[in-house]
């Protein structure tokens, strides 16, 4: 096996050196009747060329990866500068462990410190951790943190939060004695209804809202923050489309207490859902209840600046069952990719990406809204996603669009909401060309007419 340096002859010598006759003796502490007597039934070893062919063949069966797409809903196709993959492919980064020994881990530690700072800058918050698994689990951890901070056990979640995020929160809190309630959306604006936030009461630990929300609408965060804070509850803001930070008022400026986000938009491949990276930021006063790792500044005895893992007394390896979270491994390399993305795009690029997304989405929305039979049910301002109501079943329409026009036109909302057969969610990013948008619009027009006529 080419990944094992010692040859069989060297291993035989080593066995003799430690006084053993056979490799089997290495496993003497395992009761004999538990030792396998036959080889594992997994496929026989393949050579490198065979592996490449096998995976190329598998990848070729993912037709959706090869066509223009308007899918978003928690995972977004954005431009990723070429240097990201080169830099994260440096062995010094990707084959290192969690930086437990700071003297030989300063590269990772300084990059994490930069990541934390960038997350603070974009979210408008004071402190950010070294990453969570993804946006959904970051949200679940935020809910648990709010419960610890407030001592209250009820959490209200907007119905415009990504359905899968809600499911993850539900799984996490089901044994924590936390009661989950939902806040309705306004059927006209598409925003979480602020008219009546009676769902938030004095037992409520936190109100959870996503902005832009699952339906693409930008929420009135400042207004929500005021209402929520009046009840002594915390406002948790989730962001699935981090490109929006380049344009929208940061949640921290709007009064959010905890901000979580999915950082995949920052130069991370779609990769069928992962690995992604969860961003987690909060106010300075809450830092000791934060989950996850934190990197801070430290100095050596000569006064030289360095970076270390810090405030570890919150964490599982010290506090065990009393820790703020069970998280250990996080998404280090993906956080590094996001850091490189933010640095490369920089102050100007982050804004330009956001503006192009908003402009192209506005163009697409206008074109689709002008089609006979199609409408945009929500009036609230949007960033780069919007709901379209079709005159026919959306799932069938989109399937036709894929097979006949080679375009993935969006996400049928029936995937999550059985009562919305004709609605679909369209996402437009800076990567979608005008020609693609025009082809989408033309395809929708002709296929819908054909379907209605049939």
């Amino acid at each position: 096996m080419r990944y094992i340096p010692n040859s069989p002859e060297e291993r035989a010598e080593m066995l003799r050196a430690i006084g053993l006759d056979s490799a089997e003796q290495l496993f003497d502490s395992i009761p004999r009747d538990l030792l396998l007597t036959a080889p594992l039934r997994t496929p026989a070893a393949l050579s490198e060329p065979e592996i490449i062919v096998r995976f190329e063949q598998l990848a070729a069966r993912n037709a959706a990866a090869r066509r223009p797409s308007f899918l978003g809903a928690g995972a977004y196709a954005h431009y990723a500068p070429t240097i990201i993959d080169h830099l994260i492919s440096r062995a010094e980064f990707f084959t290192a462990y969690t930086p437990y020994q700071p003297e030989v881990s300063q590269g990772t530690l300084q990059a994490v410190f930069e990541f934390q700072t960038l997350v603070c800058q974009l979210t408008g918050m004071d402190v950010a951790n070294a990453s969570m698994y993804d946006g959904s689990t970051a949200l679940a951890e935020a809910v648990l943190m709010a419960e610890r901070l407030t001592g209250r056990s009820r959490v209200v979640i907007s119905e415009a939060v990504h359905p899968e995020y809600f499911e993850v929160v539900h799984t996490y809190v089901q044994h924590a004695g936390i009661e989950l309630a939902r806040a309705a959306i306004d059927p006209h604006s598409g925003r979480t209804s602020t008219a009546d936030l009676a769902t938030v009461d004095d037992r409520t630990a936190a109100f959870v809202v996503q902005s832009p929300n699952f339906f693409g609408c930008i929420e009135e965060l400042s207004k929500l923050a005021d209402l929520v804070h009046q009840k002594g509850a915390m406002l948790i803001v989730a962001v699935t489309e981090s490109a929006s930070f380049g344009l929208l008022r940061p949640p921290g400026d709007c009064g959010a207490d905890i901000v979580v986000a999915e950082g995949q938009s920052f130069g991370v491949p779609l990769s069928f859902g992962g690995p992604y990276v969860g961003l987690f930021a909060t106010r300075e006063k809450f830092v000791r209840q934060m989950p996850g790792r934190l990197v801070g500044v430290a100095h050596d005895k000569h006064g030289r600046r360095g970076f270390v893992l810090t405030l570890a007394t919150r964490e599982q390896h010290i506090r065990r069952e009393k820790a703020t979270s069970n998280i250990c491994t996080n998404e280090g390399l993906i956080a590094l990719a996001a850091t490189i993305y933010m640095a490369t795009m920089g102050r100007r690029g982050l804004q330009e990406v956001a503006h192009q997304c908003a402009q192209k989405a506005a163009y697409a929305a206008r074109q689709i809204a002008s089609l006979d039979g199609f409408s945009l049910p929500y009036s609230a301002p949007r960033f780069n996603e919007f709901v379209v109501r079709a005159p026919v079943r959306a799932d069938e329409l989109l399937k036709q669009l894929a097979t006949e026009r080679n375009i993935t036109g969006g996400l049928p909302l029936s995937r999550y909401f059985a009562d919305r057969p004709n609605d679909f969610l369209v996402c437009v990013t800076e990567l979608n060309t005008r020609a693609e948008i025009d082809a989408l619009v033309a395809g929708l027009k002709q296929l819908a007419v054909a379907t209605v006529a049939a």
Partner: protein
Amino acid sequence: MNGSKITKATPHVTQNEDLLFERSRRGRIGYRLPALDVEPTPIDEIVPAELRRDDDLEGVPELSEVDVVRHFTRLSTWNYAVDHGMYPLGSCTMKYNSRLNEKVARIAGFANLHPLAPAEEAQGALEVLYELQQHLAEITGLPGVSLQPAAGAHGEMTGVMLIRAYLDARDGKGHGRDVMLVPDSAHGTNPASANLSGFRVKTVRTTPEGLTDLDQLRELCATGDVAGLMLTNPNTLGLFERNIREICHIVHEAGGLVYMDGANMNALVGWARPGDMGVDVIHLNLHKTFSTPHGGGGPGSGPCCCTAALEPFLPVPRIVREGEAFKLDYDRPQSIGRVRAFYGNFGMAVRALAYILTHGPDGMREATEAAVLNARYIAQALASDYEKPYQAPPMHEVVFTDKRQARKGVHTLDIAKRLIDYGFHPPTIYFPLIVQGAMLIEPTESVGREELDQFVAAMRAIAREAEEEPETVRNAPHTTRIGRLDEAAAARRPVLRWKPTAKAESA
């Protein structure tokens, strides 16, 4: 040289790289996008001003592409990594990360695949997940597999929740089984995961031989409130729990289930299977045993494997096969629910599958054998110079202590830092918690004999230094670009982000 005097050289910037924010210079650009190709809409008509940010992203770096490449390349040179050499962190399994696995995970048909693409157009990805599930089931002897957990601790939480859901279904809610037993040698994630799943944690002692105390286990199980046991096997002392059948029997007789932490599965693959031992549920770390890279702290992947009895409770969606087609199955009414959006860290699944297919059954067995042999070789070679608190022959990792060196005032931390001067990453230190001054060494199979010998020589040299010149060890490392950092001061006044100085702001 026109007479200019060369004074003592100051360190090159590569050894003193500023933060991104300090390197930023107004007006520098590191990207270029295609020009906007649609008629622009006045921005106020898209997003009104009160919903837009008004800080112009002040403080976010402005850098050229060259600046960014040099910055991160310089930072990278300050890291020790598996590709430099032996990285013997115990229970972390720092084995070689194959470039082939990196290559296949980046194939465009995987990398560009949206998770919400229709299943019929993502058949290749679903087949990867399904096939990996099948192989992990075979390797562990546990047929139900979910790849959704994103890391080991996430897999633990999932596994413990499965136990909870199973007991609720079997005994009805309010069964009163709210105790999770965790050995005192366990990883901290175990009790934290149990707590997250609503269990009270009770600790099981380790015997002087380094194994789970069966008598105490029986006592703890006699109270009727035990939901299960979380056991690492081999345990974190590197010892196989040879009474594993009896342990499982005791817990099962008491009505509980056995969860195995699979962090140390690199000692078993191809030789023995948890499912055959009586274990009900296990998590694996694809980023340990199956060689997906640790990435400086992730991403990981923590698949959960369980018995057929627990299978109905696994997270949704399940990846299933119907004839020739692979599908996402959401119709699992007893499921604990989702533990993560989408299907887990798919990119890690691609790499792990490539690992399994590259090794084949023989290669995996060979890797396990080589990993255990390397650890055993070190165990024997260092016993003359370091205290070995448990005498039984270890599996894939071995624990030593600083007991002999401590007499000269040299402690585990000092020995660890001194190893850096000799060119090695230190082992896991001060873990497991039950061993005072622990040094937990796991070489893995990815180290050749000459490097093992060098490591042993370095450890022996340090033992000698501890006797003859303890100050040298106590002040280590001497060769790194920074010395030991004052972690206590860092925690007292935490600085967790860069902020502009007053001077920079006014400039």
